């Protein structure tokens, strides 16, 4: 039991961090960023390159991931999403763009980093074994704690900083935000960069544990979609809740349903569909109009 909870918590922390970036971008620009998973993979490869190829410390790799992805996110917003949003009649059109970017990043990652699975050495060794009730390697604990710290600082940033407030305002009413003197273009770009940066950070964090490969992008996006659906799209608290709930469901499901074969995810999906049928806007989302 304790083990299931611990696993769920660890998974939840990393999931929540992934979902945060996605939901931030969604709330600011109403863009469902299909390329989120690829950004995560890119982040992982950046850290890998810095740590395993250049032999620099892990923290440098992590910072590099954050920086590279932030710049990438900013550029993508400025040169791709902004003009398309401005000119398209239906806002769903950005989905084609996002999917195109996802394919493009897949191609770039393959050319830059190759097709192989990559990993970096463990950052800490050893396994916490509490009486066989909780078994948790130290590096996982460290990553979990880091993820939670990042989530907390993100929340604080959004809640109390001037930039955070501006982004929240932007997400709720673009025009009104503009009238408050918020430079909407600039803050959209910052928001997108921040979202991409979060994706990159998770990639960098997880490369020490799961390693990274080209194939992780698409499924990661789908999972992130699941989380923000559970919690409510465009709502930060919802993304966090969604991440932890999915983490827990996975952890519990995999343990309880193991005996029945290949159905954990089927059950999770089915539950989700029933849940959404009852509560169409997710846990905390605003009703969709």
């Amino acid at each position, binding site marked *: 039991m304790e083990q299931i909870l611990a696993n769920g918590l660890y998974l939840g922390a990393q999931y929540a961090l992934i979902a945060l970036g996605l939901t931030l971008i969604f709330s600011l620009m109403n863009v469902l960023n299909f390329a989120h998973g690829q950004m995560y993979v890119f982040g992982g490869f950046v850290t890998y390159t810095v740590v395993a190829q250049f032999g620099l410390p892990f923290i440098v790799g992590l910072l590099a991931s954050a920086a590279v992805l932030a710049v990438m996110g900013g550029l993508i917003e400025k040169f791709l999403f902004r003009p398309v949003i401005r000119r398209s009649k239906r806002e769903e059109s950005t989905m084609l763009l996002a999917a195109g970017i996802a394919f493009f990043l897949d191609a770039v990652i393959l050319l830059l980093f190759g097709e192989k699975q990559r990993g970096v050495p463990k950052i800490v060794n050893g396994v916490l074994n509490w009486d066989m009730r909780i078994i948790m390697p130290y590096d996982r604990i460290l990553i979990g704690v880091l993820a939670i710290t990042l989530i907390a600082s993100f929340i604080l940033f959004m809640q109390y900083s*001037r930039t955070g*407030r*501006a982004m929240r305002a932007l997400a709720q*009413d673009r025009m009104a935000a503009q*009238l*408050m*003197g*918020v430079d909407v273009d600039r803050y959209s770009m910052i928001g997108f960069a921040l979202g991409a940066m979060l994706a990159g950070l998770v990639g960098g964090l997880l490369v020490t544990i799961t390693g990274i490969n080209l194939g992780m992008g698409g499924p990661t996006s789908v999972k992130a979609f699941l989380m923000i659906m559970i919690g409510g799209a465009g709502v930060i608290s919802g993304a966090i809740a969604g991440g932890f709930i999915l983490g827990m469901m996975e952890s519990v499901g995999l343990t309880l349903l193991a005996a029945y074969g290949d159905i954990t995810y089927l059950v999770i999906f089915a539950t989700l569909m029933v849940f959404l049928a009852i509560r169409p806007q997710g846990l905390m989302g605003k009703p969709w109009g």
Partner: protein
Amino acid sequence: MLSFENVELYYDHVYALKGVSIELMEGETVALIGANGAGKSSILRAITGLRKIKSGRITYLGERLDGRPAADIVRSGIAMVPEGRRVFPLMSVKDNLLMGAFTRTDKAGIDQTLESVLTRFPRLRERFNQQASTLSGGEQQMMVIGRALMAKPRLLLLDEPSLGIAPKLVQDIARAIVAISRDEGVSVLLVEQNSRMALSISNRTYALSTGQVVLSGPSADLMHDERIKAAYLGGEL
């Protein structure tokens, strides 16, 4: 303080303003009245840069305003209460008000303005930490006016502050506008459908029709103008 010279504004191919010239002096309250679609809101949008004008000039304190980005214009001391309130629904009253002071960086000054806004609208103090979407329409309207005041503007633009508000609250809002202009020396440009109220609380009034100014003059005079009476005021209340 603010002047429009021959301003034209288009939405796609439809014109909304066709050679509009208006003026507003320091400390004045000017009302814009007119039928639906006359172009009143468009004037405000042109000032704040939400819409680009096609030709003409807009000057503010001697400087050219048109062509500058909205954020920049707000910084120069113009605050607007848009049509339909546009609160930030998921933010607290406090954060909504603080957003109003977004362009300011003087911490102490902001606190001081906040205090004065809360004193002016005591209801907002009661609801300080409540989420804005749960406020009543009238409370929301007060909050957005307060939010505009947080920028410590020299010019306040109000777009139909009485829209959808119960009569009693409309009275409160009208009093607040008068008080703001009187106490803080803020110039006010007021767009209103409630022409009687607009004429009563403004110094001067422009009447618009299909993108053009058709009548203008001191409000007190226009109040008795037969054309205005017929078109905007109706006979009796």
